């Protein structure tokens, strides 16, 4: 029996792709945090001066997402089919809301990703603020971000998506450790709380940017 048709093999694939997506989330947050240091335009320019790196990352992300989404949907459909008749009364003692909504938070992330790319990467949704040039002749990423997040609807959409991401990895991080077989009775509680802690920190890190802008702590003086 092949790795990809095995119940464990496919889970391991979900865990590896999920973990690599998580690594991306961490790197991306590090990049975003340059906004607080005033380096975001320089960072953007530097990144885009290396097209091979950017394209390798993009292609890598597409492959990771494709595999993760394909098997995520397949596993979920199988899991739902495994209990055709629901209980009249069912209490979950241990399973979390985050864990039981992985497919929904996942699909929300996918939908958000499309918007996110249209917004900041292709700059199609708000062209009036997205093509500014700063004093040094670079694309004005800072202006684009600050003016976007001044819009409460845009900020709201980002924060909602971040809640979905946060919930997804709240369950996901500890799940990776279990799936690749690194847990014991002793490590499980610690792995669970660490995973939840990391999820919370990533959520706060990302959400801080729209929040700080909405509350006027970070302004664009054009």
């Amino acid at each position, binding site marked *: 029996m092949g790795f990809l048709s095995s119940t464990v093999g496919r889970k391991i694939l979900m865990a590896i792709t999920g973990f690599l997506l998580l690594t991306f989330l961490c790197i991306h947050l590090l990049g975003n945090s340059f906004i607080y240091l005033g380096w975001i335009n320089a960072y953007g320019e530097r990144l885009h001066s290396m097209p091979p790196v950017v394209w390798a990352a993009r292609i890598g992300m597409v492959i990771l997402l494709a595999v993760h989404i394909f098997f995520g949907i397949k596993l979920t459909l199988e899991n739902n089919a495994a209990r055709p008749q629901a209980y009249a009364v069912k209490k979950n003692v241990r399973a979390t809301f985050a864990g*039981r909504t992985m497919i929904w938070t996942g699909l929300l992330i996918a939908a958000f990703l499309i918007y996110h790319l249209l917004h900041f990467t292709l700059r199609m949704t708000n062209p009036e603020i997205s093509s500014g040039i700063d004093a040094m002749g670079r694309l004005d990423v800072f202006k684009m971000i600050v003016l976007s997040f001044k819009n409460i609807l845009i900020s709201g959409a980002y924060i909602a998506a971040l809640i979905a991401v946060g919930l997804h990895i709240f369950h996901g991080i500890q799940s990776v450790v279990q799936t690749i077989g690194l847990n014991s009775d002793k490590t499980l509680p610690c792995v669970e709380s660490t995973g939840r802690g990391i999820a919370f920190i990533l959520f706060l890190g990302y959400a801080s940017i729209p929040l700080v802008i909405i509350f006027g702590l970070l302004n664009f003086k054009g």
Partner: protein
Amino acid sequence: MDLKLYVWRQKGPDSPGKLEQFTAKNISPDMSFLEMLDEVNEELVKEGKETIAFDHDCREGICGTCSQVINGIPHGGQDKTTVCQLHMRKFKDGDSIYIEPWRAKAFPLVKDLIVDRSALDRIIQAGGYVSNHTGGSPDGNAILIPKPDAEVSMDAAECIGCGGCVAACPNGSAMLFTAAKVTQLAMLPQGKVEAAQRVCVMTEQMLKEGFGNCSNHYECQDACPKGIKVSFIAKLNREFIKASVK
């Protein structure tokens, strides 16, 4: 005490089923849950009605036959307790109790609360054995097994195959059961020989039977009347990785 029961009634595998309400009267707190159902059934016999069909055998918590989801929790939610070992002192006068069968595609319903759990037997038949000739019983200490390994194997062997893990799992997965059976053998020298093949065929059989995949909710661990731990699932995953890189 008097109790209001809502029990799943279904004549056969393909008949429609529904929750039916019964009143259990004069129940002593010292009765076991199954004895309480016996009382209800005796009343039904007196009234000339069809009794509630439920599975049971040893009634001492070792055979794994009794299989009821009580108020939404397999085996009723008392720590490490099978339905037959659950006592009525856990309930109060006037309580409503919902009683349903294990629900999983791989456990076809036979009648009322009885399901066919032979899918679990077929998982064991697929690989839960040692086929190399082990000869006569070896002399004591001829095969050295570290005490901690023997303990883990014995802990895994506590699984009584009741299927409560499947009933509890939001995905109807039999991963905890399969993991216990895999671990029990993989920890011992005799079982190591076929460990790689075993983990593959047993998990394959699990999927074939229509059980779901594990999503690491750990709901199974809380439902298990024998305290089988999800660390055995991590162990199964390790065994699978070892088998794949071989």
